[in-house]
């Protein structure tokens, strides 16, 4: 009888020890995963992008009744913008939002207006609009 109690006690103690050991094993702090190697880029870093230059006003094909004409648009903040037509050329600094506005003298008839900026890579960015200055009837 005593032998059975002793065997059962040993079994229970062994089970408890096994459970405690398992609990300690699963609750131990896990080691961080080994760092993955960072892929090395084959390309050089891309150059800084600049806002595209656009003339917002006038629109292509506009009929204009007076000269000078206000030319406005959008580019990179603080960019120097050159605006030119067949009869005039002007230079203006874009504001903090990249907006620019300039008065440009026009010729009677067809005028192609070109706005230009040189970006950080030294490339000329342009936008063009064609307008017609109406001749006032006499």
């Amino acid at each position, binding site marked *: 009888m005593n032998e059975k109690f002793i065997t059962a006690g040993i079994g229970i103690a062994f089970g408890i020890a096994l459970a405690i050991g398992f609990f300690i094993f699963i609750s131990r702090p896990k080691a961080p995963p080994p760092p993955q190697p960072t892929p090395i880029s084959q390309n050089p870093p891309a150059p800084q992008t600049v806002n595209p230059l656009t003339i917002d006003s006038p629109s292509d*094909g*506009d*009929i204009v009744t007076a000269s000078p004409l206000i030319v406005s648009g959008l580019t990179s903040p603080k960019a*120097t913008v*050159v605006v*030119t037509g*067949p009869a005039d*050329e*002007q*230079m203006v600094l874009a504001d903090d939002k990249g907006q620019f506005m300039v008065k440009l003298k026009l*010729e*009677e*008839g*067809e005028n*192609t207006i*070109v706005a*230009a900026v*040189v970006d950080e890579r*030294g*490339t*000329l960015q*342009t936008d*063009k609009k*064609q*307008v*017609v200055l*109406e*001749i006032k*009837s006499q």
Partner: protein
Amino acid sequence: MKKIFFVLFLTANCYLLTASVFAETATPSASQELLDRVATKVATLAEKMKKATAGEITSVGSKSFFIGDTKINVSEVTTYYKIKAGNRTTIDFKNLVKGDDAAVIGTLDSATGEITARQVIVKIQRLTLSGKVTIIDAKKNIYTLDGKEAEIDSTTAVKTATAAAILKSKYSDIKVGDNLIIYGYYVKPSTPLTTLKALIIPQ
């Protein structure tokens, strides 16, 4: 049948009475206001129909001509001007010839795409080129901008956009690597652009 006629008679009477009452209540100021509104609407529509186009005259007919694919109709109220070397002269329809560069201001017929001209202005169209100067042939005064050739010489008005202002320059100031905006025209399609004006934008 009698009932139907009676109902029709009553309806007709009601309509006539109502119409006459409305006609009597329209005051002169209200009529004027209506006329003004109609006139404004017509002016707005006319403004929307205003259309300009420019390009080379490709053919001339008896009462019309073409700029590219666009048919330009003329009328007795169409006015014609020619601008040469900054001087404007009045011309006639008969003076228009194939190959002229013309700008047209008129009214667009949205159904046909044709324009009825109010004003025709003939002058040499200034074409533009822009880009970086890659080659300079100093002997022939030919400057290549991104693959396109332009002839720039002492007759070309050259200016430079500096940090402070736009200053007069000489064509010999143009260097390889400079950015240029030029205005000119083609004497023949295969020849370099004859440059009237060049603006240097240094890097």
